[in-house]
């Protein structure tokens, strides 16, 4: 039986350690992993807990990330609670198996420490890997700081394993900015955390020899489409369980989570939509602008990237005049993902806000409070004249000549 760990009311953990502690407290049956920077300390920390007797489950060291996720698929289909962690290139190598996991409806929890994707090789943070996973059929939760990494990991097991969901869940955090930044963390005790997550309840487990089941069957044009539609439906409908788990978590801890987080949006005239640690930078910028310049600025942040909070986005931006969507990933030939999701939601509303797109921070380039303030002021400029006065897509913090694309069509 695993030892319990005595934790202080306040610990100082970085995002990686917060993830490792949550995996330990959830009493995961199998972790199959191949560590990669900057998520390595998650697996390293978990391995240390294992060596020191704090973990009953299995820890499988594999030869690649493809094998890591394959091991997770096997263990989850066998009927266990399963988790792993990866990042960047490792995530890219996992991608084929990510689709297998979601198609087989296996509630695996994957910690993704978001990092740029080569080439050029770069170990620092951006959302290139996270964006590459957005069609993989996983629920994607995004943490903006290390406390949220811990909290969302506990929620992830409960959401994914719910009989009405049965889907794999990714918990994202920003490489280095969150993964290697230590901050005050208020953890639950081992008993409280486990009681919240609950016992794992296997469904159609392969190790139940009295009832043979098949995972990963082949379906051609006769059934493939129906399977995929059903999977999409499950993902779309999972929001009810996500909301319920977040409510239960708030009751237990007082920490509130919503699928779409909003800050200072009640009277906001201009808004930034962003993901990751940048959200907190933008909150500071909005606060300062309200105090210093009277600009009614607010911040909107999808906690849940998939399923995308389409309705909530329409509600919160209904009365906003100008919105900047911030994408921390190279868009490569189109608008950034957040622009497309937000514009896609807002096009079906009566009073559509002016929406612009900023690409920023690729490969770990710093994104400052001053830059967020400049972006807010630019949106205020659009709002005052009633049209977009700049290019629709701009590159923030880029050296060299200014780069931008497309202008507003005005009649």
């Amino acid at each position, binding site marked *: 039986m695993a030892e319990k760990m005595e934790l*202080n009311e*306040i*610990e*100082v953990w*970085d995002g990686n350690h917060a993830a490792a502690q949550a995996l330990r407290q959830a009493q995961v049956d199998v972790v199959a992993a191949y560590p990669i*920077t900057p998520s390595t300390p998650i697996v390293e920390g978990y391995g240390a807990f294992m060596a020191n007797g704090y973990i009953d489950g299995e820890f499988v060291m594999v030869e690649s990330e493809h094998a890591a996720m394959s091991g997770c698929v096997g263990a989850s289909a066998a009927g266990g609670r399963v988790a792993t962690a990866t990042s960047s290139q490792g995530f890219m190598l996992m991608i084929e198996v990510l689709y297998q996991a979601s198609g087989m409806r296996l509630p695996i929890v994957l910690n993704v420490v978001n990092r740029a994707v080569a080439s050029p090789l770069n*170990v*620092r943070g951006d959302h290139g890997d996270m964006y590459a996973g957005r069609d993989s059929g996983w629920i994607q939760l995004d943490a903006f*700081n290390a406390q949220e990494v811990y909290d969302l990991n506990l929620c992830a097991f409960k959401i994914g394993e719910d009989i009405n969901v049965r889907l794999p869940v990714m918990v994202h955090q920003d490489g*280095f*900015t969150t993964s*290697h*930044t*230590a*901050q*005050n963390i208020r953890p639950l005790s081992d008993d409280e955390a486990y009681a919240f997550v609950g016992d794992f309840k296997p469904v159609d487990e392969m190790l139940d020899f009295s009832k043979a089941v098949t995972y990963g069957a082949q379906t051609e044009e006769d059934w493939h489409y129906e399977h995929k539609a059903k999977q999409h439906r499950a993902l779309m409908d999972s929001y009810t369980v996500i909301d319920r788990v977040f409510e239960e978590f708030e009751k237990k801890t007082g920490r509130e989570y919503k699928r779409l987080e909003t800050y200072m949006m009640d009277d906001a005239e201009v808004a930034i939509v962003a993901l990751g*640690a*940048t959200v*907190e*930078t933008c*909150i*500071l910028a909005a606060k300062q602008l309200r105090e210093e310049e009277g600009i009614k600025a607010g911040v909107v942040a999808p906690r849940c990237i998939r399923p995308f909070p389409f309705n909530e986005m329409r509600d919160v931006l209904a009365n906003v005049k100008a919105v900047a969507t911030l994408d921390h990933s190279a868009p490569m030939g189109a608008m950034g993902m957040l622009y497309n999701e937000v514009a896609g939601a807002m096009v079906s509303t009566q009073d559509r806000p002016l929406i612009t797109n900023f690409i920023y921070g690729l490969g*770990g380039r*710093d*994104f*400052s*409070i001053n830059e967020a303030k400049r972006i807010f002021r630019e949106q205020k400029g659009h709002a005052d004249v009633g049209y977009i006065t700049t290019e629709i897509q701009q590159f923030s913090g880029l050296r060299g000549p200014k780069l931008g694309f497309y202008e507003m069509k005005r009649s």
Partner: protein
Amino acid sequence: MIEIRWHSRAGQGAVTGAKGLGDVVARTGKEVQAFALYGSAKRGAAMRAYNRIDDEQIINHEKFMNPDYVLVIDPALAFSDNITENEKDTTKYIITTHLDKNELIAQIPALQDKKDRVFVVDCIGISMDTIGRAIPNTPMLGALMKVSGMFELDFFLDSMKRVLAKFPQKIIDANMEAITRAYNEVK
């Protein structure tokens, strides 16, 4: 908010020092942040680590800061790194060196107008004497306690004992001695 920038070489323990400081400060009810910029840096490469300390939750994730304290734990970096970058009129410098303060300042033009804000302590020498290895991070924390007045020495030593609890007693004792010596010797 108090902001601290560490100048170090990868492997000298700046990250551990920054996290250790964060750990101690968090126990007093303050909110802390500790992070570093190193990425794929190799042992010996110049790197920086950072602390923020505040009464409210810290949500500023900028790498940029105007530091209140600059801690230089590798002697050569005082010469080769831009240690006065983004300084304020009040920024205090604690520099590891075997030189005395006037000798050091005479060789670093950027420090010549800030004599009363520069403090020196030989963290490398102290850590060699006490810990037996060049790990200048804990003595630097002792010097910081003296210069900043953040905590009384006894309180800080007690807190650091808990932070270092996973190490053998011999190492804990050596670190306590290193902190105390740096506290008393910083000038």
